[in-house]
C-alpha cells in the first residue's frame, strides 16, 4: 500500500496530526501498535489544558503551549469533545512561593499568556473555599482548562478516517527502510510504503527514530500516578489547582474532570521500563498527602480507581519537532510530555504545514472538520430520549447502570471509524464501566455486545488487546 504520510503512534499528537494532514490532498496512514488509539501517554495524564506560563520563554514548549491552548476551544467544538475553560490557580504556601508566583507570571507574560493575575489569600479563598487555609496566595490563569485527552484523540482519529486517512491498529513498527524516494514501514508481518514518516511514538520515539539511524533522541520515561475520585467529590474544587513547580514537573494537582470526577496527581518517578504503568502503594499515599496539602478534605473513601501514565521526557527539557537530521522526510515529534496535550493542536498544525510545504500539497477541498456529536443518552431530556428510542430501540436498553449508557451508544462506539475493539475501548468511548461499580455489572454485557458485533466468540474479546483476554475456555 502506498501512502504520502505514515504517522506512527495514535496518541493525541498522532491522531490530530493525521487529521491535520487530511486537510491536504495527502494519503495518510495512522499506525498504532496497540488495539486502539490513545493507549500510551495520552490515556493517563492530568487532562489539563495549561495556560502556558511554566515553559522557558522562547522554547517550543512555550510557543506551542500558548498557541495550542488558544486553538483548543475551536478544535474541541469541531470534534464535539467536551472542553471546559475553568482556569487554573497555582497555590503558594509561603512567602518564598509567593515569589515563585511572581516569577511564573513574568514568564507567562513573556510567553504571551493572557490574563494572569496574582490573588491574595482572601480572593483565593473566596474563589476556592475548600482550598487549604495554609495557602497564602495564588496565580490565576483564565485560559487554562480541562479536556478529556482520550476523547479528543478518539474524535480526532475518527475525523481523520472520515476524511480519508487509514487507521492500522496492532501495527507495531519494527523496521523502516528508505530507498532514496520512499520508506517501507513494517511490523514484521505487514508493510506499507510512504513518502513521509511522522514519528509520534511517545515514550518510544527514540526507538522509532533509531530505525532510520537517528540516534539523537534519548527518552527518559517519567511515571506519574493518579487517583480518581467519585463524582460526589467533583464539585470540591472548581478550577485546576497546582502547587509550585519543581525540577520534576508541575507537582500534584487537584482538579475536576470534564466528566465531573475529581483527579489527584501526578507523582513523578523516572523509570527504566517503558511498559511499567503499575501503581504503587507508597507513591499513591504520597499523592494523597500532597493533594491534601492543597485541599485537606479530599477523602480516600471516594477514590474509585487509580492509574499511572508515562511521560516522554528528554534531557533538553523541550519538545523536538521537525525533520530528522538523518532524513528530511522523517519528521520527529519527540519529547511530548506536559504541556503536550495543550500544545497538541499546534504541534499537529506545525507538522502538517511542514510536510505540505515540503511536497507542495494542495488543500483537500472535501475536508470536513466536524466529527458528529456522539449520542449521549445521559445528557438528554426525556423528550429527546423518547424521540431517540422511537428511531432506534437499541437506545432504550441501559447496559451500564452507573453511568446510564445504552446499548445503542455501545454499538455506535464499535461501528465508528477507528471504533472500539475491546472492553476498555468501549469504556473510553462511552463511559460504560467507568462508574461506581467499575464494570462489575456491565462488563459481561459489553463483552457480549463486542463478540456479537465483531462476529467472534466471547473468549476472543480482550480488555485492551494483546493477551488481555477476559475469558478462557468454556466450562465443563
Amino acid at each position, binding site marked *: 500500500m502506498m501512502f504520502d504520510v505514515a504517522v506512527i503512534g495514535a496518541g493525541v499528537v498522532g491522531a490530530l496530526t493525521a487529521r491535520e494532514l487530511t486537510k491536504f490532498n495527502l494519503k495518510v496512514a495512522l499506525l498504532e501498535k496497540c488495539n486502539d488509539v490513545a493507549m500510551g501517554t495520552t490515556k493517563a495524564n492530568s487532562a489539563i489544558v495549561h495556560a502556558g506560563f511554566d515553559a522557558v520563554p522562547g522554547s517550543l514548549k512555550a510557543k506551542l503551549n500558548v498557541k495550542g491552548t488558544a486553538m483548543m476551544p475551536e478544535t474541541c467544538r469541531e470534534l464535539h469533545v467536551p472542553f471546559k475553560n475553568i482556569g487554573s490557580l497555582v497555590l503558594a504556601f509561603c512567602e518564598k512561593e509567593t515569589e515563585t508566583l511572581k516569577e511564573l507570571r513574568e514568564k507567562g507574560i513573556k510567553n504571551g499568556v493572557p490574563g494572569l493575575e496574582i490573588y491574595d489569600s482572601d480572593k483565593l479563598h473566596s474563589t476556592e473555599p475548600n482550598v487549604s487555609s495554609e495557602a497564602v496566595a495564588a496565580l490565576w490563569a483564565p485560559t487554562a482548562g480541562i479536556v478529556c485527552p482520550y476523547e479528543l484523540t478518539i474524535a480526532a482519529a475518527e475525523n481523520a478516517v472520515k476524511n480519508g486517512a487509514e487507521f492500522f491498529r496492532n501495527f507495531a513498527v519494527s523496521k523502516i527502510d528508505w530507498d532514496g524516494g520512499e520508506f517501507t514501514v513494517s511490523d514484521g508481518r505487514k508493510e506499507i510504503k510512504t513518502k513521509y514518516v511522522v514519528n509520534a511514538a511517545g515514550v518510544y520515539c527514540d526507538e522509532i527514530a533509531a530505525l532510520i539511524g537517528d540516534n539523537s533522541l534519548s527518552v527518559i520515561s517519567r511515571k506519574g500516578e493518579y487517583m480518581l475520585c467519585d463524582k460526589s467529590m467533583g464539585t470540591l474544587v472548581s478550577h485546576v489547582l497546582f502547587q509550585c513547580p519543581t525540577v520534576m514537573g508541575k507537582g500534584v494537582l487537584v482538579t475536576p474532570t470534564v466528566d465531573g470526577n475529581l483527579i489527584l496527581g501526578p507523582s513523578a518517578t523516572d523509570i527504566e521500563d517503558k511498559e511499567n*504503568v503499575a501503581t504503587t502503594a507508597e507513591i499513591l499515599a504520597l499523592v494523597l498527602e500532597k493533594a491534601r496539602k492543597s485541599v485537606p478534605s479530599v477523602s480516600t473513601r471516594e477514590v474509585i480507581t487509580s492509574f499511572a501514565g508515562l511521560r516522554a521526557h528528554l534531557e533538553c527539557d523541550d519538545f523536538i519537532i521537525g525533520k530528522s537530521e538523518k532524513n528530511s522526510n522523517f519528521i520527529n515529534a519527540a519529547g511530548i510530555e506536559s504541556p503536550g496535550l495543550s500544545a497538541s493542536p499546534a504541534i499537529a498544525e506545525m507538522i502538517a504545514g511542514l510536510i505540505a510545504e515540503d511536497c507542495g500539497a494542495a488543500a483537500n477541498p472535501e475536508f470536513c472538520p466536524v466529527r458528529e456529536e456522539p449520542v449521549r443518552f445521559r445528557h438528554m431530556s*426525556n423528550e429527546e430520549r423518547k424521540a431517540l428510542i422511537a428511531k432506534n430501540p437499541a437506545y432504550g*436498553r441501559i447496559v451500564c447502570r452507573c453511568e446510564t449508557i445504552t446499548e445503542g451508544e455501545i454499538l455506535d462506539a464499535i461501528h465508528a471509524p477507528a471504533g472500539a475493539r475491546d472492553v476498555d475501548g468501549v469504556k473510553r468511548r462511552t463511559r460504560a464501566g467507568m462508574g461506581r461499580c467499575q464494570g462489575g455489572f456491565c462488563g459481561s454485557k459489553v463483552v457480549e455486545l463486542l463478540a456479537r458485533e465483531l462476529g467472534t466468540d466471547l*473468549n476472543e474479546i480482550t480488555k485492551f488487546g494483546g493477551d488481555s483476554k477476559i475469558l478462557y475456555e468454556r466450562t465443563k
Partner: protein
Amino acid sequence: MLNYDIVIIGGGPAGMAAALRAKECGVDSILILERAETLGGILEQCIHTGFGLQYFGEELSGPEYASRFIDLVNKEKIEYKTDTMALEITQDNKVYAVNKKDGLLEIQAKAIILAMGCRERPRGALNIAGTRASGIMSAGTAQKYVNIDGYMPGKKVVILGSGDIGLIMARRMTLEGAKVECVCELMPYSSGLTRNIVQCLDDFGIPLYLSTTVIDIHGKDRVTGVTIASVDENRRPIPGTERLIECDTLLLSVGLIPENELTRAVGIGLDSVTNGAVVDEYRETDHEGVFACGNVLHVHDLVDFVTLESQTAGEGAAKYVLGKKQKGAQVTTKGTGMVRYIVPQKINLNNEGDVKLYFRVGNTARNATVKVKYGGEEIISRKRPRLAPGEMESVVIKNEMLKSFSDGGVLEITVEV
C-alpha cells in the same frame, strides 16, 4: 402516562415478595420494573444450594428459590416489565423508566417500593497497587461468566475477601477445574457464613488466610501473580511478610454496597452505616409513600430474611395505599458498642403488632448477652452463644412494650460480653 397504586423497582427476591404481599393485602394495581431479562435478580446466577432453609424449611438452589416466587407472581397476574431500567423517581412519586419496547415510560405511583439490590465493591475502592491487567474482577461477575455464560474467567485463582460470594466462587471455580490458591481476608475473621467456610473452603482444602491482604498485582496484559502480606491490628501490611502467589485471576469479594442512586437522587435520607435508607418498621423511608427492602436497604446474608423483610414492606405499602398507615409518634433505634446498625431505625408507636429489629455486630463474640434498653432501662436481655459480623441477629419488641414507649424515645441495643 401510566398509573399504578404500587410501582416496585427491582424484580429480584425483594421486589417479588413485596409485590405478592401487597397483593395479598388488597392492592391489585402493581407494576414491577426489572432491569434484567428475567425476574429473579441475582438468584438466577446462584446455582448453588442453601437457599430457603429458614423460609421454606428446605434447601433450594437460587433459581429454584426465585422460581417459586416467579410462579406466584405469574399466578397472581402481577404485572411486570423486564429489560426495563428505572431512571428517575420524582418528588411526587412518579417513576421514569426505559426499555426497548415501550421507549420512555412515565409512571405515576401512589407508593413506590425500592428493591434494587446491591453491587459489589470494586478494586478501585481498595486502592490495591499494581498493574491494570485483565483477570481482575468481582466474584459476582465471575459467577455470571461461569454460571450464565458458561465460560471460565481463569484457571489459577486468588480470591481477596471472604464474603459469601467469594467463598461460593472458590468452590465453583474448583469444581470447574480451576486451582484456587487461597482466599485472603483482611480482617481477623471471615465476613461469610460459617457453613460456607466449611463447605466451600475446608471441604476442598482451600486455605483461608485471615489478617492478610493483596498489596500488589503483577502482569502486563493478563494477571501473572499477586503479592499478599499479613496485616497488623490496624490493617496495615507487615513488612517482611510479603509473598508472591502466581495466578492468572484475582477475584474480589470485598463487600457489597446497596444501589441507592435513585434513592439519593430524590433526596431520601440514608443511614451512613447501612448505606441504605432510614426506614420505619414498615420500611417506609422519610419520603412519604416510598418504601425500601432487601439488599438495597441493608445487605442481608440470607435471602430468606430478604423475603421476610420485603413482605413487611409490601404490607406497609398496601396499608399506605389503602389509607391505613399513618405516621405519628415514633421512637428511634440505636445500636451501641458492638452493634453496628439496626433496621428499622424508627418505629411508629401506633403499630398494632410486634416489631422485629434486625441488627449486625462489628466483631465476633462468644457467650454474649444482647440487651435492649429503653431510656437507659434494660427491657430485654438474651444470651447468645456466638455472634459474628457475617450473621444477622434479631430481637422482637412486643406490642405491649411498644405501647409503653413515648414519642421521641430511644430504643438501644447493645451487646455485653
